[in-house]
């Protein structure tokens, strides 16, 4: 830890001398090997000191929010270029999404809006988002729900990290109609994936200095499936004696979340319960417009809003809340090791959140998206960093 921070400070000294030529390559590589969790991460796609990130606008509010992100990045002179890949969800072919997946493989990192899934289409047309997650094996979905000081909510002091298995479970999309009128849907739980996600959860908990990990399950009913998940969590917990491990049944969890959410610290769970719990927690801290989410795989990382809403009804009306997408882009900058830019944008976003007159409609205000973004950019400029014109 000390070695990597020393290397980090050294890079700050080295950078002004070498300018943009050498960039952080030498120092960056050492940083990578110290800080990255897995040992096989390919180096970030850097060219001339600038990173390239795949950008998938998606549908609904995705395109406009990602435009705002690009605006803020350009304004703050963030050395990130975006490779935009459009995915047309109404087409039946998978070419678009395959292009997007290839772009992400090429770049290693992506920022995306939600791609709409029309559930009236036949079952052969799968959810594009799900396809993206499973093809790239983005096995961990991480969401950090924190009570924001400027936002009025019923509960206070919430600080929960939710780690959700992202590839299997109920989202296996394996369904068949064996007899007419009887449909079977398969929920798959594997030992490997459960161990992997539990390990990720405990490592993240240790890294962030968290004290307690709670596994959410329904093993009293699904004895084999969730039983296996719970057993894997217990096995991994044995290797982390400094972190307390307990488990809770999912219906009790939701009941506790709406009455005493302060009791939870880190939670790990299979896919569907993760969907429910993450949406409940997002609602508790103020809504879908405030929480960023990240999907991590061994080799790739994709950042998006935590609750993955398309927001069709509020699209193109300048009322969407840009906070979630901007915070997601800050998480991406952290992942790319551009920590300074990440913290400056994040501070600007959180400070703007304290100004209630700039709240968007979803958190009870009357501000527009562009007003919020302008205010964020003004704040970044006021901090004295290098920016382009407003």
């Amino acid at each position, binding site marked *: 830890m000390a070695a990597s921070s020393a290397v980090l400070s050294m890079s700050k000294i080295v950078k002004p001398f070498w300018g943009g030529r050498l960039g952080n390559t030498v120092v960056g590589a050492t940083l990578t090997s110290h800080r990255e969790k897995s040992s096989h991460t390919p180096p970030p796609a850097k060219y001339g000191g600038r990173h390239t990130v795949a950008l998938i606008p998606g549908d609904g509010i995705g395109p406009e929010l990602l435009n705002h992100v690009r605006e803020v990045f350009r304004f703050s002179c963030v050395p990130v270029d975006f490779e935009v890949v459009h995915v047309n969800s109404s087409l039946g072919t998978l070419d678009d999404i395959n292009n997007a997946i290839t772009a992400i493989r090429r770049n290693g990192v992506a920022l995306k809006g939600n791609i709409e899934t029309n559930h009236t289409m036949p079952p052969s047309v799968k959810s594009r988002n799900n396809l993206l997650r499973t093809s790239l094996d983005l096995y961990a979905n991480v969401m950090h729900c924190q009570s924001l000081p400027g936002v009025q909510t019923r509960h206070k002091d919430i600080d929960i990290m939710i780690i959700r298995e992202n590839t299997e479970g109920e989202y296996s999309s394996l*369904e068949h109609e064996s007899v007419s009128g009887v*449909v079977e849907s398969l929920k798959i739980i594997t030992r490997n994936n459960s161990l992997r996600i539990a390990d990720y959860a405990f490592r993240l908990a240790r890294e962030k200095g968290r004290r307690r990990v709670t596994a959410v399950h329904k093993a009293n*009913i699904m004895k084999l499936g969730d039983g*296996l998940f719970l057993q894997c969590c217990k096995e991994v917990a044995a290797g982390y004696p400094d972190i307390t491990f307990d488990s809770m049944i999912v219906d009790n969890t939701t009941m506790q979340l709406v009455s005493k959410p302060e009791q939870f610290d880190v939670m790990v769970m299979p896919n569907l319960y993760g969907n429910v719990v993450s949406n409940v927690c997002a*609602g508790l801290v103020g809504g879908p417009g405030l929480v960023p989410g990240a999907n991590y795989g061994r080799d790739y990382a994709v950042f998006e809003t935590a609750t993955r809403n398309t927001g069709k009804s509020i699209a193109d009306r300048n009322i969407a809340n840009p906070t979630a997408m901007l915070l997601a882009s800050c998480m991406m900058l952290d992942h790319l090791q551009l920590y300074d830019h990440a913290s400056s944008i994040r501070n600007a976003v959180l400070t703007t959140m304290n100004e209630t007159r700039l709240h968007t409609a979803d958190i009870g205000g009357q501000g527009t998206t562009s007003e919020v973004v302008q205010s964020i950019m003004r704040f970044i400029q006021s901090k004295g960093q290098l920016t382009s014109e407003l």
Partner: protein
Amino acid sequence: MAGNVWRSTILNLLRKWGLSINDKNKVKAQEVSRVVGALKTETPQTRTFVRGMQTVTLIPGDGIGPEISAAVMKIFEAAKAPIQWEERNVTAIQGPGGKWMIPPDAKESMDRNKIGLKGPLKTPIAAGHPSMNLLLRKTFDLYANVRPCVSIEGYKTPYTDVNLVTIRENTEGEYSGIEHVIVDGVVQSIKLITEEASQRIAEYAFEYARNNQRASVTAVHKANIMRMSDGLFLRKCREAAEKYKDVKFTEMYLDTVCLNMVQDPSQFDVLVMPNLYGDILSDLCAGLIGGLGVTPSGNIGTNGVAIFESVHGTAPDIAGKDMANPTALLLSAVMMLRHMGLHGHAKKIEAACFDAIRDKQVLTKDLGGNSKCSEFTAAICQRVQDMD
């Protein structure tokens, strides 16, 4: 052989109903059919009219069950509700062939009375038999679990304007219990959705909405991911919506419902959904109004059977100490009265209960007070009697 048995059964029935047969040939066909027909379509209303008192099977349960059942019986007596209680025990016994079942006298009583009130049942860990709730569900084919969640004035929670009903399919879905180990380390659980079960629950939901003057029904699903299974469920809901044009029908994704539920629960009315989502959402809604200690619940089965129950646990640590809170069982009993059409008594008892809680003088420990269960019960009885 069979014919003789059938004939003697008919003769016994006719004798019971006061008809006598001098000559078998002279038995009027319509009399026999009247008897048989009346038995088949016997409805609670008819029986109330005939006898005045309704008989209800009461299953006190374990732990605090007997205390709270006694409390409910006392309150009903004070309210002069026309209910006669028939107490039965449902400890599982092993029938012929090794299959576990509920005692035959309990089954017979339920089949006869059609309405039941149940306290909490303990699920023994290593008894070798499935949980009692599961057994009851299978025996009477209890396909719908109905949980009305209304904010209780006087029991403060962060949510003050909850007024919704969750209707959950109770027989299939993710809880079918079909699991296999495919290879070592890979487990598969099967979620079963059938057309008839989905149709049955959808029609019940709309029927309930109509009977209870609810404006809209929302189907909760995840058809974007589970296209075929939840798609089938949705299709059946849409078909049922066509038949009940007076009730508004909407569909919403499970995650959107969860998100909106914790931000603004007042926007929901009646929610209908498959088993797992129903389990999670109904407990979420119970948490919004104050927990399982104050939430009523009813299970509707085929053949007009309905069992109303309290969904909390047996609380063995406070059993027998007169500390239990009978609110959940009482509100379930009120739900039962409404189901039977005794709205006047239902309103009276419910109002007395809510007034007692709002008054805050005699609350039990879990509601934040210090009183005993008997004191709380007595307060409600007093209020009920004062209302007359």
